[in-house]
């Protein structure tokens, strides 16, 4: 359930008394209600479901995840085993 997609807020305005935004998804722009993320500013990213922004994307957390995944890559090589736990031939092991 719950198809929700991240996009960038490019405009904030009021419509019928509700705080609304224009959300840019890689060049296609759609309208979303920002009432549930009142602190969001233009240029920030949000996750939108059924025309409503439901969270502000935490960019620091996102960056941390990628750092962790890249670290995983290094750790796998350092340990001397391949992706599936089998020992790597000696010349493939990175120091």
């Amino acid at each position, binding site marked *: 359930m719950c198809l929700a997609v991240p996009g960038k807020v490019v405009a904030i305005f009021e419509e019928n008394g509700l705080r609304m935004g224009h959300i840019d998804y890689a060049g296609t722009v759609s309208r979303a209600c920002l009432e549930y993320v009142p602190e969001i500013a233009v240029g920030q990213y949000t996750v939108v479901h*059924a025309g409503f922004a439901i969270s502000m994307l935490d960019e620091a957390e996102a960056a941390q995840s990628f750092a962790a995944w*890249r670290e995983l890559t290094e750790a796998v090589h350092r340990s001397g085993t391949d992706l599936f736990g089998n020992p790597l031939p000696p010349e493939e092991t990175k120091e």
Partner: protein
Amino acid sequence: MKYSDEYRDPALAQRLVGEIHRTVTRPWTVMEICGGHTHAIMRYGLDQLLPKGLELVHGPGCPVCVTPVELIDKAVAIAACPEVILTTFGDMLRVPGSRQDLQMARSQGADVRMVYSPLEAVALARQHPERQVVFFAVGFETTAPANAMAVLQARREGLANFSELVSQVLVVPAMRALLAAPENRVQGYLAAGHVCTVMGFAEYEAIAAEYRVPIVPTGFEPLDILEGLLMVVRQLEAGEHRVENQYRRSVGRSGNALAQQAMAEVFRVADRTWRGIGLLPQSGLLLREEYAAFDAERRFAVQGIRAAEAPQCISGLILQGRQKPDQCPAFGRECTPGHPLGATMVSGEGACAAYFKYQHVWIPA
């Protein structure tokens, strides 16, 4: 697309897959509750990459699939009223009722319109004061805040011609029911990342402790799902059973307070029947008395609905993860996506539809 594409990096995915393989030493059964996870797993073929002993069971997180037949029949009956514009998410258009679905009703002259957001339905009510605009408010907690705002907005604007036909369900009671069932085999859970975005994950802590199962709120991109699975199996292998948040960029422990407030203002928790599963106590939302004026069930007082399910349909067992679609005698015969007997064959993320789509065995060259 930023915050999407990076989460589909094949090289990083391979790393996570490899790590899952290195971690798993015994068979485990993990359920992804959310239909969105089922869909993503099928879309990228993630289940093909996992170790053989790691079994994924598809859960009942498909609000389309669990909407009671009676409600579909009521929606069809309401749509038939000439003054009504019945608005709905696209997902609901082809879900079978006892005799018809909404798309069939439209082809017979009912004014049924698809919307992307409940605010579009409110806009229709504003634009057409001479018509009754009914919004089919279906969803889990992710959608409830949107459906709540539509009611609040209609009241603010004095739109007496707007009402909602409510079919809101809650995840946690369903999880508890699954876990309490004696035949439950599931040992760990990927929790629905967008439900948790709204609700937080504090309420899962008691469940994890009581039933001794790891629960991981997970995002929907391949790297999210693979990391979520890795977190679950690491806990299982270590004998742990905590709530651990994979979807940190969107989910916080307490969720979205404003969204929860709007839900609490407009809806109250009530017993609810889940199609294929039956009555689950305190598992759904209904409009509060103060908002009764916006309740389409009361406004249209639809009588004489005698709901009938196709007798062969075992979607309930499938939603609980107790049977697989290809174990159903009707699967692929009387029941196909073109002629569905139950909701799990209609919904794009219903397990039966997914199995039908991907059932052929592909032999790599």
